[in-house]
């Protein structure tokens, strides 16, 4: 395919809490619910473990979208972790938006261990959204591009 432009494949980093969302992702796998391979999951103990630094780091290193999944509010394995994560991410995303960075590149979704289908659907939707946005150019580190 000489002249065909290579289709844009976004890089998506998904932080999943160990107790709900990672298990939800496992369930999606067990049920063979497909979502694009562009999504790579990083296991964290709780959504509250995710430091804004990690999200920026992902964008720096070439991610086109970052999604954080945790237990539903009220169901946190550690009782309150996702409440803090919720505030932190709300403010961080709002700040990124304030700086003119596409807010659709970041997302928080609560996925329980039973919601394999929701996990797959969320990832499909997120990949579609980010694909539509195209390459992340506003929060990239040019040195990391080849």
């Amino acid at each position, binding site marked *: 395919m000489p002249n065909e432009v290579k289709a844009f494949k976004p*890089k998506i*980093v998904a932080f999943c809490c*160990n107790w709900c969302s*990672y*298990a939800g*992702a*496992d*369930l*999606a*796998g*067990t049920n*063979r*619910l*497909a*979502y694009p*391979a562009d999504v*790579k*999951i*990083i*296991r*964290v*103990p*709780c959504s*509250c*473990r*995710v*430091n*804004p*630094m*990690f999200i920026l*780091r*992902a964008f720096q*290193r*070439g*991610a086109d979208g970052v999604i954080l999944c945790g237990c539903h509010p*009220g*169901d946190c*394995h*550690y*009782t*309150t*972790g996702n409440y*803090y994560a919720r505030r*932190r991410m709300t403010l961080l995303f709002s700040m990124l938006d304030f700086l003119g960075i596409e807010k659709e590149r970041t997302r928080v979704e609560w996925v329980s261990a039973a919601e394999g289908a929701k996990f*797959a659907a969320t990832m499909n939707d997120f990949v579609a959204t980010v694909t539509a946005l195209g390459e992340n150019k506003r929060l990239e580190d040019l040195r*990391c*591009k*080849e």
Partner: protein
Amino acid sequence: MQKIGVFVCWCGSNIAQTVDVQAVSDALAKEPGVVYSTNYQYMCSEAGQNLIKDAVKEYGLTGVVICSCSPRMHEATFRKAVASVGLNPYMLEVANIREQCSWIHKDKEVGTEKAIILGRAAIAKVQLNAPLQAGESPVVKRALVIGGGIAGIQTALDIAEAGFEVDIVEKNPTIGGKMTQIDKTFPTLDCAACILTPKMVDCAQNEKIHIYSYSELKEVKGFVGNFSVKINKKARYVDENKCTGCGECTTKCPMKNVPNEFNLGMDNRRAIYIPFAQAVPKVATIDPNYCNMLKNGKCGLCAKVCGAGAIDYKQQDQVIEEKYGAIVVATGYNPIKLDKFDEFGYSLSKDVITSLEFERLTNAAGPTSGTLLRPSDGKHPHTIVFVQCVGSRDTSGCGKPYCSKICCMYTAKHAMLTREKYPDTDVYVFYIDVRSPGKNYDEFYRRAVEQYGVHYIKGMVGKVAPRADGKIMVQASDLLANEQLHIEADLVVLAAAIEPDKSARPLATMLTASMDTNDFFTEAHAKLRPVESPTAGIFLSGACQGPKDIPDTVSQASAAAAKVIGLLVKDKLTTNPCVAQSNELMCNGCSSCEKVCPYGAITYIDKEFRMPDRTTRIRRVASVNPAVCQGCGACTVACPSGAMDLKGFSNSQIMAEVDAICQMK
């Protein structure tokens, strides 16, 4: 730089079908630090595990990456395997290439590429792994139960039964709690005292149980397995060891007009009193607010009549220090105050009473010796109106937003008992919904309606107005008949909402246990850990966790006891090694981490530091108790200086994974 071995599992065909396992192990062999890389049909099988063990030994591996199914499946298996050949189990990471790769992708090229990236991320993480040791902390084989109601009693008895020492701290002069005030219990209608008092006696007689009555908690320090508690034993001015409970003093005391809290102020007791006949411990207590001797130094009659010489006006509060391995909170509930509910006329008429007062009016040990008489004139009431949900399910802000759960059933009980004893009495019950789930509960309620002819009316009472002639006008709407009702009642009984005891909140602060906005203690998990607080070593028993009836309370009390026994039976606790750690050199002592810790695992210490210019400086720094920390990581993000990090999921490890995933290759 680690020496890393990579082991790619085929999982039969589960992985191998959509991931080219050979390509994965070949690609990962080229990663920095990888000295051995292979693939095998079933890594989790004994042969697979041996393959790993042999490689660890042969290549002197310092890190292992398994590309296989979810770590939730076999991480523990593999960790155990590498530990058996001397590698620290936390030097192993699992790349999930089954659930999160081969099972969801159909294209082998795509699956293989992703598997390689996931493998790289795991390798990048292992590079930064450090050997972790699960810590150990000793367990003090003694439990503390806070609150001596039926919940506390049951928990204490069960723990003692298992052979462990238990102390009960009860703020009142006797244990027994609310249940002592109740007449009969639904749905079986057996007498509360008959089933409770033997348990109270059991407590008193059980040599493993020590009761600190008339005592409160003053300070709690320490953590699971090793709490140090200070208990303030209030002066009761009677030597417990000498008092025989004969009651002579309580009949001679000249201060006769002290409202009797046991009967909810509906009759009086003396300044020296024993709350009720079956009190445990059965010893007298002097009420310092009323005792003339304590207030003015005049009288001393009780000392004179006491044959045992137990009266001691000089007695002081006594602070007892004790160590415990586990603490059970069983602080119970109280009906809410009804002063905000003037529409029900509670403060306007003596004949508008709460359900608990109704219990006392029907109890043989109550102010009327069990005959149902109107408090105002002592006459038999002929029309009684029961009002449900007073202050429950109330979002107006005056009451409580939740359902108090027990009111439907006890109101049915009251209505039924009234009709049974006084068939000439008309009984109306106004309700929003009747909630009667539970074994034999709905049958019980239906009996009240069907057999005993209680008038159940779906509707809210709008106004309760006492009339000069002693009647009480109840205005209400019947929602089903869609009509306004005006009932001339002789007695109105309000099913007041229940709320956690006021002592709960300061107690929660002391215990660093979390509470919800209604001051009920929060459980560690609403479904799976209902009798544990998120704070390790703190357990919940009874209504302090949420409204409960007696059967529920007792089952939860026993459940909490089982959890406590499970803890106390251990000699040592193994702690989760993936816990937060504060780098004292960088810590600012700002308290951000402490505020977000759900477990109270972070404390502050003043520590002396040598400064670069060779001076010393004392700084406040955070210190994490690894026995208490559960490793959620909330603190690591709250910490602006990055002093707080989480072992096993450190900032650098997670960023290395991010880098590996995003890396262009």
